[in-house]
């Protein structure tokens, strides 16, 4: 087999594994104040933003990398990474899609994300992030009419500094943990969403993240603010080329819901998971946190995690407003040598707050999966309740499934219920499906989809279809 054929063969497993040959502008390798100044400078940021970064960097220097997580990884040399990489054609920001580098358009077309608005069927506004910069945001005009701001983070810093200043770092402060602080110092781009008072966002907003360049880390920062009585549903998708090295992805996502507002945040994470021997793949160390600031607010996280060599994240809700609601729905699938340590935190501070956690973990091959979650009901959170269910499915005896819930109840008016089960697909179920003409692989696919149904239901329509397919693909070859 020549090299080309081999490449094609490889791509069958992970169809987003191609890379785009495009000229890049990069920050010098390494992590120091100059690099941070370089990033800030190239993005023409105001001084307060640079100060924010430097403050975070000062703090970062004192922090130690955490190592309590289950999946261990070789030490990352933070000086051996590029912290900024952008397609050269983005140096002078194109005014419209027509001016965009055709190579970029081609890439997104290959990924199934057409950026031309007319090509969209159902009106999902997309912000496409390529390595360190946002390359295009669609449907901007239509959203602007309603007063909705949906743009890249860099643009928001320029055009809406008041909002950014007011909310950035309020949920994930610069004094947070190691990776979050690193992100605060070097974040490059990401999406910014502001929904004004009383507005229901008429379409799904979506960001598509793509890591292209090698030896780069992607550090994006997303900030979503839902003002009083507003509603927004936000989707996030991710892919990366196949490379033998491990790449770091350490994003921060902050959500803020004011009085009576609702934010629904869905993720389909399909970063490159590494090959079947566990070589390469993305380290997905993301900090996602939502703050239900106002009363009656609601934040709901839905995630389908199929990619990445190591996934290490806990999308959390801080339920500060009275009567606020936090939800977490998750499917995590690991195959081959993938490892995941994921779950959520529900921190109940306000009265009558409610939270619900549904987590489904499936591990196959040599993979390892951990659900780790915290439910903390504060003594002032009267009459709060939490329901947690985490189920794991194991395929074979080379993989592992673990559940580590932390439950803290400091309020006697509140109820916490937690359930977890671990099992395998029963022979009876398989037999039943096969009897009716399904081959073993289809049978497993069907059963797994049934197992995940509660979570898949929470996804917006188009995503649900894609996610369902993804679940099937991720488990290919793990049966028998």
């Amino acid at each position, binding site marked *: 087999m020549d090299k080309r054929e081999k490449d094609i063969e490889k791509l069958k497993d992970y169809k987003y594994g191609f890379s785009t040959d495009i000229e890049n502008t990069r920050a010098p390798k390494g992590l120091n104040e100059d690099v941070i100044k370089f990033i800030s400078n190239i993005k023409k940021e105001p001084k307060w933003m640079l100060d924010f970064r430097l403050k975070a960097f000062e703090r970062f220097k004192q922090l130690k990398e955490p190592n309590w997580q289950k999946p261990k990884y070789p030490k990352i040399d933070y000086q051996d990474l590029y912290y900024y990489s952008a397609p050269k054609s983005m140096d002078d920001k194109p005014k419209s899609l027509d001016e965009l580098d055709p190579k970029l358009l081609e890439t997104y077309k290959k990924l199934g994300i057409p950026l031309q608005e007319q090509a969209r069927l159902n009106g999902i506004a997309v912000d496409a992030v390529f390595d360190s910069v946002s390359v295009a945001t669609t449907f901007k005009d239509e959203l602007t009419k309603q007063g909705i701001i949906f743009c890249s983070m860099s643009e928001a810093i320029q055009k809406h500094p008041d909002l950014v200043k007011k909310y950035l770092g309020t949920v994930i402060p610069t004094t947070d943990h190691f990776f979050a602080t690193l992100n605060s110092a070097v974040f490059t781009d990401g999406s910014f969403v502001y929904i004004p008072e009383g507005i229901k966002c008429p379409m799904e907003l979506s960001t598509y993240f793509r890591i292209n360049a090698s030896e780069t880390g992607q550090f994006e920062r997303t900030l979503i603010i839902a003002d009083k009585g507003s509603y927004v549903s936000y989707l996030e998708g991710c892919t990366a080329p196949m490379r033998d090295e491990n790449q770091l992805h350490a994003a921060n996502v902050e959500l803020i819901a004011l009085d009576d507002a609702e934010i629904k945040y869905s993720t389909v994470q399909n970063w490159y998971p590494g090959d079947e021997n566990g070589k390469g793949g993305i380290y997905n160390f993301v900090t996602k946190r939502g703050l239900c600031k106002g009363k009656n607010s609601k934040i709901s996280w839905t995630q389908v995690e199929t990619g990445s060599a190591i996934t290490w994240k806990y999308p959390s809700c801080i339920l500060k407003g009275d009567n606020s609601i936090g939800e977490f729905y998750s499917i995590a699938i690991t195959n081959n040598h993938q490892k995941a340590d994921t779950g959520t935190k529900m921190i109940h501070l306000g009265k009558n707050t409610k939270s619900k956690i549904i987590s489904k973990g499936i591990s196959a091959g040599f993979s390892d999966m951990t659900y780790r979650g915290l439910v903390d009901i504060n003594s002032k959170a009267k009459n709060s309740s939490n329901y947690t269910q985490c189920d794991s499915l*194991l395929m074979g005896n080379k993989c592992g499934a673990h559940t580590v819930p932390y439950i803290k*109840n400091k309020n006697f008016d509140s109820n916490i219920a937690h*359930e977890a089960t671990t099992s395998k697909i029963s022979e009876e179920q398989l037999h039943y499906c096969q009897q009716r003409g399904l081959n073993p692989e289809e049978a497993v696919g069907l059963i797994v989809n049934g197992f995940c149904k509660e979570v898949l239901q929470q996804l917006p329509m188009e995503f649900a279809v894609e996610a369902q397919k993804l679940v099937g693909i991720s488990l290919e070859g793990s049966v028998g």
Partner: protein
Amino acid sequence: MTEQIKIDFEKIVKTSALTEKDVELKKKHLNKFLDTGFPSKKLENWKFSDLSQIIKKNIGELSFYNDYSISNELDTSIFVKDFEHNKIIFINGSIEKVDFTHEDHDKIEINDNFKFVNELEDSNSLLSLNNAFSNKNYKITVKKDYSLKKPLVIYHTTNNKIKSKNINPKLEFQLEQNSSLKLIDLFNDAAESNFINIFYNFDLKEGAILKNYKIDKVQNKNIRYSYNNIEQDNNSISETFILSSGSSFSKNEINCNLKGEYSSAFVNGIFSLNNEQHHEIRTIINHLVENTKSYQLIKSVLGKNSKSAYQGKIFVDSKAQKTDGYQLSKAILLDETSEFNAKPELEIYADDVKCSHGSASGSLDENSIFYLMSRGLNYQQSKELLINGFLIDVVEKITDTEIKDLIKNMIGFKE
């Protein structure tokens, strides 16, 4: 603390008849303890109970030297009445009396100079402390095919001769093939502000049955830590029941290794706490081979300012197919100042297993109270009835009827 502990250690070396080799070994463990000191909440296993702080707050400076030459008077009034049993009596950490009157003496071997040092994998600094300072090592062997006719009651007593001391009782049990032992630990402390650090090691051979009931019921102001290590061979059964209620602070750890096929382990516990009490149970059940079973049920009733924690871990090795593991913890919080923490953990590497855990906590159900009150009970009675109903579940799990009745009497359950 470091200075004090070294001085006390030298004092022990001088006054006791230890061989050079023993001293060497004890010194090694002392140094191991000094490396880390008392566990603090920085350690994952001590997240919910910071022992280092608790000792500082409740005792202050501990002293580690105990004069075991002082004779202590036996207080026979603490003996369980109308209940025939064998006795081992600890007073202030040393064994004063061993009495197996009801048994066949050929079938039980008691070695009071047994040299054993606990070298457990999942060890902590308290184990090292116990190894360094424990007085005499007793090993009790129950011979093949022998079942003790009467239960063995171990009285753990202290008197007012000690204060701010650390005492380190230690016992080793071996249950040979098809033997069985019923063991009740009764804690009865008159002393205050001591840190009691108990280690038990059980070795269960094929078909052996161990039933261990730990009753900490008498209110006392001591800090207690108790560690049971249980090794289980084929077809063996261990049953542990913990009533955690008397001490100011108490942590019970059960580490159970199911090494033989068809072995099973049961752990049941009750926390009944009040007034600034803080108790914890931590269990680790290691399923290491096929066809093993474990079952755990822990219930808490928490009054004013009290706090309970339960950390339970079920580990299933990749070889341990057909494992059955179950774990349930429930808590009732009676007051706005009470707190319940739980960490029910599963770590599973085999696919053909049935493992589940559940945890629930909340207040007493107002509807149930209303139901009872509408039938003529007053508020207090209704509350008590509901709490009794909640806890009796765990007591009913005790398989030995005689001991079950005894424990029901002690707790004050009326039927």
